């Protein structure tokens, strides 16, 4: 009975929290949406996070590598998502949430040169 009372009190005092995929997406990425253009250097379809490495070259010729992270391989596979479309050497524009770690992003969509758009997790957009 006392356990029930404690649980009831706890429920009344509790506040909702947003769950987040590991590593915590909401903690590791801001809400700021950014875009980066470049060529795909590497694609990793793995757990805990699939990722795409993009090389951006600015107008001064400076190279910057961006790590574009997405969901877990197992989660994406369960949703029928593959990263086969992302070929090394392709020129793309990646858009997503800016990471707290420098030059990282949580992928929202990738646009190819022909204008087609790849959205791995539409439910997050």
């Amino acid at each position: 009975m006392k356990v029930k009372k404690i649980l009831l009190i706890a429920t009344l005092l509790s506040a909702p929290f947003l769950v987040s995929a590991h590593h915590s997406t909401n903690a590791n990425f801001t809400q700021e949406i950014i875009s980066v253009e470049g060529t795909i250097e590497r694609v990793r379809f793995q757990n805990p996070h699939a990722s795409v490495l993009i090389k951006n070259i600015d107008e001064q010729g400076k190279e910057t590598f961006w790590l574009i992270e997405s969901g877990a391989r197992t989660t994406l596979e369960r949703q029928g998502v593959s990263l086969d479309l992302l070929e090394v050497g392709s020129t793309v524009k990646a858009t997503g949430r800016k990471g707290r770690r420098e030059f990282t992003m949580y992928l929202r969509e990738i646009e190819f040169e022909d204008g087609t758009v790849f959205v791995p997790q539409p439910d997050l957009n």
Partner: protein
Amino acid sequence: MFFKTLVGTISLGVFATAVAQTDISGTWMLNGPGTESEILLTVEGKRLQNDYELLEDDPSLYCTPASSSRIWANPGAPIKIEQTAQSILISYELFDLRREIPLGDESALTDQPSTRNLNGTFFPEMGSSFANYEGKRLIIESRNHAYGYIRTSRGVPQAPSTVAIEVLEVEGDTLHVTHTYIDESIFEKPLVLEYFLRRADEVELNVYDCTEANYNWFDELNAN
């Protein structure tokens, strides 16, 4: 005093005679946001929290569970529960964790962590547990935790002195998990978390095969 009373009260429930297995067997997936009570840390709790650097210390980066609560609260990864006469086996797809919890009272506790991955690596962050039934509820008590984080986003800590009580109850097709953390060295009052999971028996657990998130190579790329 309050903490001792609380632990004692909950423990009485844990020691209650097993009535019957419940309908918690099956596969479950997190269903929406959970809730948490107010987090009131002691001086020691705040010290542990302040020492935490999210981008470096999050155990998830190293394929290690930060705490049992963190493993429950992971969307997109199924959790399978199996019951036998002697134990409860909870298989978490995340990190390929297998948590085997003996049924019984405190005497069922061992020094060995209850959780390991498919490679056989034990994770003391998940504690050592025992479980029993109280009516239709399954109650799991865990102790002997390694230092870890109940909330990795904010570095809410756990410690070896932390006692965790998980109450699992099925309501329709929803598994309701209430997770109470008790540790007067860290918390001014018990921290209570709730999760809701939907039945997903059609979902198979896959091999997770976690790869550590090493960012050194990436940092070096941009340093050159």
